[in-house]
C-alpha cells in the first residue's frame, strides 16, 4: 500500500474533480488531481500516484528512478495491475477515450 506509482500527465481535464490522464508504462488512466490543487501539474509533468490520486509532483529523472525501484522491489506487475484497475479498468487503448 505504500505503492507510489510514477506517471506522466498527458492531459488535465478541468472540472469537479479535476482529473488528469496519466500514462504509466504505456497504460493510460485518469487519476484525481484534487490533492495537487494548490500546485496543479501540467501536461508533460510527472506525478507520484497513490490509490488513484496524484500525491506529489516529481522530476522525470526521479520518476524513472522510481519505476526502476518498483521493478527492483518486484512490484512492477502489481503496479500495472493497479494502474489497469483504475477507473474499474475502463478503456485499455490510449487512442480511445471512453466518455464517463
Amino acid at each position, binding site marked *: *500500500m*505504500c505503492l507510489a506509482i510514477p506517471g506522466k500527465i498527458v492531459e488535465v481535464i478541468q472540472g469537479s474533480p479535476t482529473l488528469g490522464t496519466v500514462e504509466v508504462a504505456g497504460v493510460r488512466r485518469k487519476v*484525481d488531481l484534487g490533492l495537487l490543487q494548490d500546485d496543479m501539474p501540467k501536461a508533460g509533468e510527472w506525478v507520484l500516484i497513490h*490509490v488513484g490520486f496524484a500525491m506529489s509532483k*516529481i522530476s522525470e529523472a526521479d520518476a524513472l528512478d522510481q519505476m526502476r*525501484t518498483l521493478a527492483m522491489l518486484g512490484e512492477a506487475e*502489481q503496479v500495472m495491475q*493497479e494502474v489497469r*484497475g*483504475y477507473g474499474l479498468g475502463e478503456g485499455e487503448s490510449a487512442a480511445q477515450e471512453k466518455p464517463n
Partner: protein
Amino acid sequence: MRFVDEFRDPEIIGKTAEEIRRLNDPGRHYRFMEVCGGHTHAIYRFGLKDLLPSNIELIHGPGCPVCVLPMGRIDDGLAIAQDQSVIFTAFGDMMRVPGTNGSPLEHKARGMEVRIVYSPSDALKLARSNPDKHVMFFAIGFETTAPSTALTLMRAKAERITNFSVFCNHVTIIPGIRAILDSPDMRLDAFIGPGHVSTVIGCRPYEWIAANEHKPIVVSGFEPLDLLQSIVMILRQLRGGEAKVENQYKRVVPWEGNRAALRAMAEVFELRPYFEWRGLGFISQSALRLRESYAEWDAERRFTVPGVRVTDPRAAQCGEVLKGVLKPAQCKLFGRECTPEHPIGALMVSTEGSCAAYHSYQHRKELVSSIQPVA
C-alpha cells in the same frame, strides 16, 4: 562485497556502506526502527542487512495499516456486507486478511458481493453505476491514503450519492510511534521515518521525537541508496550527540507536507478518542472517523456493527512482532502453520507485513544457504 554488484550504481552503494562502517562504533549495539512497512519490504528485498555491520540492528515498526488492524474490525466490515444489497469493496491487500469466519475472499466464495478496488473513487463509481445496491468502502491506511478517502467523501457529498458509505479504519502514524517509545519493551536509538506518509504530513510532526525523546529521525526514500544514506545520516547525528529531524527523501517529501491533503482530511475526519492497534493495545487519538457532517456516509452510523473485540489466535505472536519485540522467525507459527499461502495473521498477508517480507526473502535465502551441496 558480494551483494553490491546486484545494485545499480554499485560504486556509490559500496562507498555508502563503507561510510557506515567508518561511522559505526563497534562497541555499541544500535537499534534503528524503520516505521513504515514499505521500508521493511525494501530492506528485505534488497538484502540491506547484509551490507550493515552486525552491531546495527534494524527493528520493524508498526507502519503497516493492514497489520495493525485488529481482527474484530474485519469482522465488523464483513458484518455490514452480510446484507445482500451491500457490495463490500476494499484494496487487494485486504482481501486475504483473516476474519474470525474467514477472509473477505472466502466470504466472496460463499456468495457475498465483494469487489477489489484500486482507488476509493472507484468504489464511489461503483455506487454511481449500481443505484439499487449500497457500496461500502473498507477504508484503511495511514495519512498517505486518508486524504484520498476524504476527497472521495467530499465528492460523494457534493453529488449526493447516498448509496455509498465508508467504513473508516484510517490510523495516524505519530501516536503509533509514541506508543512504541512509551513501551517498556523497546530501547531504540533512532528512527528511519516513513516516506510516503511524510509527503502528506511533512516533517514537522516528527520534531518531538528529536526534541523530547532525543532520538534522530531521518525520513527516507525507498531505494537501497536512500536507506543506506539515511543510516549514514543517523550515525552522523549519533556520533555528534545530536538528535534532529532530517529529510533524506527531499525529492518527494516537502517539509511542510501537502496542505490540500491536510485540508481535505480536516474537512471530513476527526480523531477517535481511542482505537485498538494489534500489538499496541488501545492508543488515544490514533485513528480517524467521519465527522458529524458526513454521518450519512459513515458505515458505522448507517449500519449496526458487532464491535466485538477479537483477539488473535493464542499461538500467533503478531502483536510482539509488530512491536518489534520478536523477529518474524521467532513466532512459533512462522513458516509452519502460518505461511503466505495459508496466513494466520495479517503480517503474513500484507505486502508490507514483516512476516511476509521475511518469508519471501530472508527465509528463502537462509533455507538456500543452509542446503549443503552434495559432493
